[in-house]
């Protein structure tokens, strides 16, 4: 599927977004400088940026960023690969949904923080623990989104598929999956943030190398500027990832009413 005419953000759109960000940053600066926000815990942006700049020049930050990014990506891909087929199944086969529902609902609220010691014991302190935690958290969110989406297939469309003898697999692929895509893409954006957050959390607590480990070190080492610098890098990473996902979404969902452009 190639994109047709999708509603891409126009140049003024970008300017507007950038402008808003600048306004917010200036606001923070003013609030901390004037003491409305306590500056010693919440350093002014200029100070954070000053701490960040030398880091940007060095390789370590980019290495850590790469580690985190890699963890995020693998976890999200794993979670998607597991959740989408299962979600389509659960969304289309009512008895499978009924059978697994209590278990799914039971497992979903299990906090990853509580799992950390168990995961470390089972998987160690390496990347695999980080991946497990992030995949675990993202998986449920994607599962819910896919299940709901697959259940939202237009009735007439589904009947057309049945009438033309599409097999179950074909119906999943060509009818249930595209119908679920709008839900799924939203789910991916929710789960992407979750995956990133869990990767960073695992880095903080278990000490897997990455941005989180730096946040933890700088917090322990009495450098709030640097700690915030790394938090900001994490936030920026989240924003970048989302921008990329949103662009991908516009291509994949170019047929959806949200992206059809002017009528």
């Amino acid at each position: 599927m190639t994109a047709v005419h999708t509603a891409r953000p126009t140049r003024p759109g970008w300017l507007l977004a950038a402008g808003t960000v600048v306004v917010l940053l200036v606001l923070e600066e003013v609030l901390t400088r004037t003491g409305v926000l306590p500056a010693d815990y919440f350093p002014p942006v200029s100070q954070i940026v000053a701490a960040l700049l030398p880091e940007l020049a060095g390789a370590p930050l980019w290495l850590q960023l790469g580690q985190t990014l890699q963890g995020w990506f693998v976890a999200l891909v794993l979670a998607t690969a597991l959740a989408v087929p299962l979600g389509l199944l659960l969304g289309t086969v009512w008895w499978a949904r009924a059978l697994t529902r209590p278990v799914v609902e039971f497992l979903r609220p299990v906090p990853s923080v509580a799992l950390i010691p168990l995961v470390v014991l089972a998987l160690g302190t390496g990347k695999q623990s980080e991946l497990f935690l992030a995949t675990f958290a993202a998986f449920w969110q994607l599962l819910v989104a896919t299940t709901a989406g697959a259940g939202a297939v237009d009735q007439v469309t589904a009947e057309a598929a049945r009438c033309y003898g599409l097999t179950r697999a074909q119906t999943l692929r060509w009818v249930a999956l595209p119908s679920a895509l709008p839900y799924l893409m939203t789910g991916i954006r929710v789960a992407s943030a979750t995956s990133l957050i869990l990767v960073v959390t695992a880095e903080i607590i278990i000490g897997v190398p990455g941005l989180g480990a730096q946040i933890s070190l700088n917090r322990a080492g009495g450098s709030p500027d640097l700690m915030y610098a790394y938090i900001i890098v994490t936030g920026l990473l989240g924003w970048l990832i989302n921008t990329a996902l949103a662009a991908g979404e516009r291509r994949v969902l170019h047929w959806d009413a949200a992206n059809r452009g002017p009528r």
Partner: protein
Amino acid sequence: MLEVTNIAKEFPTRTGTTRVVDDVTFTVGEREFFTIVGPSGAGKTTVLRCLTGLAKPTEGTVRFNGKKIVGPPPEFAVVFQDYARSLMAWFTVRRNVELPLRNLGLSAAERRERVDTALAQVGLSAAGSKYPWQLSGGMQQRVAIARAIAYRPQVLIMDEPFASVDAQTRADLEDLLLRVRDETDLALVFVTHDVDEAVYLSDRVAILSRSPSRIDEIVPIDLPAQRDQIGTKELPEFARLRAHVFSRIRAMVNTEPASAH
């Protein structure tokens, strides 16, 4: 070939159930063009849904070649009344038409050829790479027709398939159906509101009463097998049949006061 025996259909309502189809029986033979007409809300779509196995009749059975129908048989193709929703917004017109062909064991070239032919037959050759939502209502309806024709079913079930096309295109499509029937030995179950169309196309026309519906009458259309838009419609027998069917429907719409429904 297709036997509908005493089917009834009830829907659950807040207070109990409503009986929408009361008792409908008919058979459709090989190569037969069987049309159902009746007032709006009579239960025509409901009968078609039972026929295809999409809905389960509350009572009675539907058999195809002697076998009870429980789900849509692969030999059937359907053009839905709600044609716009039956198309997949995420596929181009070509892909929509081609999709059902994938299970027929055709080569890619054969599939392409069938799609091309069907699109040309409904006058949409140039729209193949568009998406359904970029088409006009009538064009969408023709895509649904093309999909059904390309599938080359043994039984073609159509629910008001020409509701949104202009008179000339409609006439062309009517003749297309007759031609396809002759070429591929198709049986057709057809629903229309256009009495002229029903008489012109059909071998038999079943008139459904208001809901809870029964078959009011099945009118055999004894017109020459070879139909022709001008010649056939000028036959006195055509006018007679047309008037007969029309008066039956009118009687039904008017017997019960409009507000009572």
